[in-house]
């Protein structure tokens, strides 16, 4: 049996052009399992587009996205994504989870129990019967994380998951992300929050103007950025400079 894992993920010469504007410019990178990769960069640098291309939500204009073992079309997905604004359906909290389990072909009699386990892991078990859309922003995002985690994805992509949350809700979300990583899921996180990048990242992929400008372990990146663009970004973003 060949290694059936999704990772590593290789991007070969990936570009994305929209409306004559180059959003991503010849990106080459490999995402390995284990390490938490944080994609950092200014607004409009192309971080979110890069994440969507990795997850298969948009196709690159040119270049290739190669998984070690690609997913089978139509089969349950083995990767998940959590968006800045959680998309929840007009059902109960539990109903949202049952729906995702159904899409993943989980047999009906297992769904209820698995959904409850998933809720407990993010501290929402008390809200199981509530309509999902009336939860607070932080609770909604934790529900989105529970939904993603429930299916034990090999990779979890996160697109600025705390950008619309207040600090205490953001901390809860960060601790759930840490727990998901500890349980064995590869984390790929897009953020422009430097503190979050330090807390949640093992390595930084710095995107500037659609190019992968720099890639380094977190400590190295923040202590001695190798490129002038990264140094400028860090200076601009750090409030105490």
């Amino acid at each position, binding site marked *: 049996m060949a290694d059936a894992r999704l990772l590593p993920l290789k991007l070969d010469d990936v570009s994305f052009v929209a409306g004559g504007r180059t959003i991503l410019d010849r990106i080459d990178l490999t995402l390995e399992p284990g390490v938490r990769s944080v994609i950092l960069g200014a607004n409009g640098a192309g971080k979110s587009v890069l994440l*969507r291309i990795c*997850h*298969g*939500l948009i196709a690159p204009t040119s270049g290739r996205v190669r998984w070690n073992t690609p997913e089978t079309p*139509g*089969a*349950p*997905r083995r990767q*998940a*994504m959590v*968006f800045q604004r959680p*998309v929840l*359906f*007009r*059902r109960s909290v539990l109903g949202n989870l049952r*729906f*995702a389990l159904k*899409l*993943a072909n989980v047999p009906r009699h297992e769904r209820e129990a698995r959904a409850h386990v998933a809720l407990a892991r993010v501290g929402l078990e008390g809200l199981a019967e509530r*309509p999902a*859309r*009336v939860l607070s922003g932080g609770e909604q995002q934790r529900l989105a994380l529970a*939904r993603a985690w429930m299916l034990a994805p090999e990779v979890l992509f996160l697109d600025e998951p705390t950008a619309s949350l207040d600090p205490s809700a953001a901390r809860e979300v960060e601790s759930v992300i840490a727990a998901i990583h500890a349980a064995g899921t590869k984390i790929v996180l897009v953020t422009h929050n430097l503190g979050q990048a330090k807390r949640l990242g093992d390595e930084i992929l710095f995107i500037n103007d659609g190019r992968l400008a720099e890639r380094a372990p977190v400590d190295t990146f923040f202590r001695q950025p190798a490129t002038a663009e990264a140094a400028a970004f860090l200076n601009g973003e750090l409030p105490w400079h």
Partner: protein
Amino acid sequence: MNTVPLAFAEAASMIARGDPRLLEIIWLSVRVSLTSVTVAALLALPAGAALAVARFPGRRATIVVLNALLGLPAVVVGLAVYLLLSRAGPLGAFGILFTPAAMVVAQAILVFPLLAALTRQLVADAWGVSREQLLSLGAGTGASALALLFDLRFTLVTVVLAGFGRAIAEVGAVMIVGGNIDGVTRVMTTAIALETSKGDLPLALGLGIVLLALVLALNIVAHLVKEGAQRRHG
């Protein structure tokens, strides 16, 4: 001259005592329109959702045609159904011209574009918001369309009620294919048209009042459903 106040008084008393002629006509109207809207909705809701979510050649053209059909004149639909169902027509063998079944067919055709176009618009908006999440969860086209229809269920109730309102208030098509036969195919609108021209104002007025009340009640129900759902589900 006080015919109008007298007619009103007589109409009110017909309603109050439940005049059998009045009730029979109302009951047929409701039955025909409920059936036609049910048939139309069963076809139009999935069709509208599919048009919003699926990508296929000719999709844009289909949407343009569908939107154009919103302005379909009822009498033209009546004429077309008449030709189809008449003895010499392609569906003449069924022998349903001048029966309630023919009226159901005409009303369903009339209401289908309304339901499908409104559904398409609603689902397309929801699809814009949820597309990436549904793809991320591995939902295919069919599963996405069904999930969005379910997500919009409360708004769709109001869409279907709007379709019922159009069906029950329509005259031209049911007049042509039903024939306005007393006791067989006479519905509220055709009866109002006939009784007014005959000068039997009380019956026409009574039916008019009931029709108005019905349409008003439908709108109130639609509004309450939507509000209640919004309060509960956000």
